[in-house]
């Protein structure tokens, strides 16, 4: 990632502070509502709005993204255990990650409209695309 993109994502993450989990949880809830087939990976959880189980998973996603933000030089290495888990054990369709990332962008745009300039948006998209590449095999 280019220095300007890294700096932008790091600055935003500092601003989000300890609230990252709140936004990733909202992103998960939005994914379930807008793309109902995505619930297939979470049928073992209570998926009703405000569910503590979804919040717990949202926090796991937040922790992984925060780890990624602080290891931008080696995302594949840093996320290799998650790649193994999501690809081989959970067998998640990579499309799901794109849907979740889109809903995360919508969530952040909603909560931080003043910070969500087009350049910030572009930097976040690059960051999330790198995360998805490290997490999931590319199709074809």
């Amino acid at each position, binding site marked *: 990632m280019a220095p300007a993109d890294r700096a932008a994502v790091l600055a935003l993450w500092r601003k989000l502070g300890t609230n990252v989990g709140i936004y990733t949880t909202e992103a998960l809830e939005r994914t379930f509502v807008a*793309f109902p087939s995505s619930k297939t990976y979470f049928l073992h959880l209570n998926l009703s709005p405000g569910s503590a189980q979804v919040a717990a998973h949202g926090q796991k996603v937040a922790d992984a993204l925060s780890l990624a933000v602080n290891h931008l030089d080696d995302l594949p290495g840093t996320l290799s255990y998650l790649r193994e888990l999501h690809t081989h054990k959970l067998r998640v369709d990579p499309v799901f990650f794109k849907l979740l990332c889109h*809903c995360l*962008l919508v969530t952040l745009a*909603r909560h931080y409209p003043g910070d*969500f300039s087009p350049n910030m948006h572009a930097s976040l998209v690059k960051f999330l695309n790198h995360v998805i590449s490290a997490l999931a095999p590319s199709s074809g």
Partner: protein
Amino acid sequence: MSILLTHPCPSPTPGGGPLPLTNSLILLGEGRTLGQEMRNKRPHSEEAAQTCFWPIRITSKLPDTMVHFTTEEKAAVASLWAKVNVEVVGGESLARLLIVCPWTQRFFDSFGNLYSESAIMGNPKVKVYGRKVLNSFGNAIKHMDDLKGTFADLSELHCDKLHVDPENFRLLGNMILIVLATHFSKEFTPQMQAAWQKLTNAVANALTHKYH
């Protein structure tokens, strides 16, 4: 598009017996009947030619609907649309597409300065075109039960003249959603997002419908 119906009723021919397909009066639309089509394209076997259909004349075209919007979804979309400033949201959505997905700039070579975020956001041609695109969404909202028909001409234009890869329609749809989220954070609940997501996906599909 017309739809062929078959009816499991006894044959109307005197003394019973099957009604040959080649005599069918089932209307296919545009003045053609199934019988004419079968006479033009002779079946390979007599057996096929003797397939019985009770002729049912379809006198009206059925709407070509692949997506069904519930009453709640239509109401949600309409309520937010009433608050949208088409010039602002349209211009910003297109600008974001050009900035976040820079390959899309190739479709707008004649727009002049697209070299920076501020140049794109301030470009008057981007604003005008963005407003045009969002006005077509306004048209979609008025015709949510027949998006394919509504966008047929635009679909041909984007395929035959503009050569736009259909994936870009989906990307622009997502940009519109993000811009709506920045402008209407309170109203943009998960249910509101889902309704608009369905609309933008359906418009993207309708725009792709005439591609070949």
